[in-house]
């Protein structure tokens, strides 16, 4: 009998599999398809202070082994999330959930995190300083070590739950940004957000996506995720939530060997709504195949 449990910031997960923000809504729509309590947890749709419609359409483009999205943080705003979405989530999910937060100023992040921190079902705050699809914020905080640290400090000052900072791969040196977040009090790092990408339609000779560029995700980016997680694991002592193209139990193990304590599954949920459940179910088989008895013992095993 293999043990799939891992501990993330002093909360035990039954398994390390976490559907990523923006690919799983607020959970209840997937709960119509299967019992989502089989998951380690999940990270809910990126929430901002005010409601946002997001970017114009088309927002989606297909690529080889992946996709580009430029949704632009569509969400109903933190008050509506607390009033309407979390009660629905509570009915179908009985584990601590990861609250994903975005903002356009330090004050935005503080406002939204402070509100969500008070919600009983929120186990962790995943602070997204790396959205490539919004102007005047988002990724701007994640591409500067000082700005990322400032957001981290400000959020930590008003919250009690573990704060995990979600980092962008669209930087020269992700290690220095991760270290700055750790020094500013972050309880964890999640990485990698999507890579800034673009697709041009040969028929129209214009970008497919209305916003021109968007976040590239899917299996094609997994080697970049593995490399960056490996680098950051060597430099920080806080846990890493790894993600980037994860589509199978084998991918989960690979990211854990690179240094991830838990692993998010993103685009795969959009291709196959049962992907996260199937990965959870397949983990014991793959662990046995690679003679892993205790999943938490392989974290950073490649170093």
């Amino acid at each position, binding site marked *: 009998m293999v043990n799939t449990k891992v501990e993330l910031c002093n909360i035990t997960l039954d398994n390390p599999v976490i559907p990523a923000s*923006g*690919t*799983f*809504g607020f959970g209840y*729509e*997937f709960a*119509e*398809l299967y019992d989502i309590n089989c998951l380690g947890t999940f990270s809910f*749709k990126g929430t901002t202070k005010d409601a946002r*419609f*997001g970017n114009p*359409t*088309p*927002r*989606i*483009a*297909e*690529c*080889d*082994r*992946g*996709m580009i*999205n430029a*949704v632009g943080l*569509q969400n109903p705003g933190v008050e509506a999330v607390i009033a309407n979405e979390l009660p629905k989530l509570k009915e179908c999910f009985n584990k601590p959930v990861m609250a994903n937060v975005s903002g356009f100023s330090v004050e935005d992040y503080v406002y939204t995190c402070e509100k969500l921190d008070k919600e009983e079902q929120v186990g962790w705050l995943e602070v997204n300083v790396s959205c490539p699809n919004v102007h005047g914020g988002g990724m701007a905080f994640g591409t500067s070590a000082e700005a990322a640290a400032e957001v981290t400090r400000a959020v930590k000052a008003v919250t009690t739950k573990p704060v995990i900072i979600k980092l962008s791969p669209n930087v020269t040196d992700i290690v220095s940004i991760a270290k700055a977040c750790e020094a500013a009090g972050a309880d964890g790092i999640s990485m990698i957000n999507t890579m800034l990408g673009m697709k041009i339609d040969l028929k129209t000779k214009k970008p*497919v996506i209305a916003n021109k560029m968007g976040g590239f995700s*899917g299996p094609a980016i997994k080697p970049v995720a593995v490399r960056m997680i490996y680098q950051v694991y060597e430099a920080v002592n806080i846990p890493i939530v790894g993600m980037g193209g994860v589509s199978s139990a084998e991918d989960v193990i690979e990211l854990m060997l690179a240094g991830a304590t838990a692993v998010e599954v993103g*685009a795969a*949920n*959009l*291709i*196959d*709504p*049962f992907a996260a459940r199937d990965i959870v179910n397949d983990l014991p088989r793959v662990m046995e195949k690679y003679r892993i008895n205790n999943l938490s013992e392989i974290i950073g095993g490649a170093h």
Partner: protein
Amino acid sequence: MKQEFLTITENKKIAKDVYLMVLEGDTSAITASGQFVNIKLDGFYLRRPISVCDYDDTTLTIIYKVVGDGTEAMAKLPCGEKLDVLLGLGNGYNLGKSGDTPLLIGGGVGVPPMYNLCKKLIAEGKKVTVILGFNTKEEIFFEDEFKALGASVHITTVDGSYGTKGFVTDVMKNLTYSYFFTCGPMPMFKAIEATAVTSGQYSFEERMGCGFGACMGCSCKTKYGNKRICKDGPVLEREEIIW
């Protein structure tokens, strides 16, 4: 929504670049005319959303146009092959408002979802008129199939090579009807919006990520708030649409 592995029993060309595919298996998740399915193809990352042309409990008929690499690969699939399909996606048409003399308007690959809708309305005893719009004669399909259902059928072609020369609205403007249902390209919708004298329902198309409401890739604004074309649509009522 359900995921099923359906077997291809037919896949044939029926007009220029247009193919008809019949799939067999458990199609019980499809509950309304105007819903769509989302098909996984080997070698392509995202699924292909295709509207349902006709269905019963064990078969599904779709009609698709070859517009890119994905649909080109689809056209080459042999009978007997199994496809990974998400079924029962989208809201579909609400037949309750049709009145006794509904008008169905399909443009190009917007024609297929009109077929099952027409069948159901006629089964309810409605007197159905159908306008099918195409660019040119060699793109026309399903004229006889709609006639066989018992509908009054008008064909328009932009170049005048068959039927009435012009657009669907050139026929629509001379008809009387109780309500309308339509599916087709945006320029056609705008012309219909300018011509229609009753309420109606439009089925929209948008690039989708998932097709089942998770990714917010296909959102649109309506008078009643934001909606996802894939989950809250693809059918929207005339009164709620912001043009």
